């Protein structure tokens, strides 16, 4: 079973297959795992579409109904890391994306649980001044 980790999602994908640094996902699985949609014009999210590049050295990025999402993710400037066996993959967010988001000065949104398991989303607190402070037991 291959699990794909992206932002705060963790998606076990029975139909995924890995081959070295390639991660082949079907259309629906791409959307489930990442929130991005594989459309004719490329990989899309909201108003943004990234056209599929032609594979380097003859390596196709598309194989039937599957896309090597790892190759495309790296092409987009994002880190991809996986365990040696290829069963757990992180489709990370690149530094340009993180810095770009912060530069808008809009506080990046997130949702985290408290110890009772209740989720709290940052944007739920709009309308109040938020002091967001970190701590740790270590």
């Amino acid at each position, binding site marked *: 079973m291959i699990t794909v980790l992206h932002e705060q999602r963790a998606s076990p994908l029975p139909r995924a297959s890995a081959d070295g640094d390639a991660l082949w996902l079907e259309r629906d699985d791409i959307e489930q795992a990442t929130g991005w949609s594989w459309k004719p014009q490329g990989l899309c999210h909201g108003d943004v579409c990234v056209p599929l590049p032609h594979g380097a050295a003859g390596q196709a990025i598309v194989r039937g109904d599957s896309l090597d999402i790892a190759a495309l993710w790296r092409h987009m400037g994002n880190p991809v890391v996986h365990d040696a066996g290829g069963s757990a993959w992180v489709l990370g967010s690149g*530094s340009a994306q993180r810095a*770009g988001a*912060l530069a808008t000065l*809009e506080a990046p949104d997130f949702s985290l*649980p408290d110890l009772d398991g209740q989720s709290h989303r940052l*944007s739920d607190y709009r309308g109040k001044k938020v002091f*967001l402070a*970190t701590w740790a037991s270590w």
Partner: protein
Amino acid sequence: MWQALFDELKDRDFVILAVAMDQPDAARPWVEAALPAYPCLIDRDHHVADLYGLVNVPQAIWIDESGRIVRPPETAGSTDGFRSMDRTRFTLPDEVVAERNRIKALYLDALRDWAERGAQSRHALNEAAVVARLKPAEPAIAIAHAHFRLGQHLLREGRTELAQEHFAQAIQLHPDSWNIWRQTAAKDARGLAAGPEFWARVDALGDRPYYDPVAIDGPARPT
């Protein structure tokens, strides 16, 4: 840690979100002992650290009512005074304690000022000032966060040795992150990553800070 401030300011459209860069079971006894009235969120994968470019605790971000950052990530009242600690007696020189208290009071006063005055507070920075204080993008840091995320997942699956390999990668790529180093380091009986390895790494900083100092003005002069 912020409970007193919360009690003072809770009627002023001011909320504290305390985010633990921590495993839930490690955070739990602290939260249950303190029972704070404000939300204590558990960020076991350090997602907020990834989003905001955080490297240590405590760090804080101030966000106004419209969701805009008015103070970017910075050290929240702590200092490097602990580095002067007598490591056998666990004591601090008086002047170090005094300075630590002064810096903490300065930070809390600024926070209070913002809670009471909002955008009128001189501690709520304008857009140019916030942007100037943001750190530039570093690709290695993004890769480090990906390795840390993978490591935490592998730990939960019981694949501890493999997790440690990815944590080592994360530390190598993002050596400035004490969040990553201390979260993944061996802990003592109290759950602290504060043994000889920690002190060696702190000493290796030399003149570099453990906590980046914050530029916060003292009380405004009366006009």
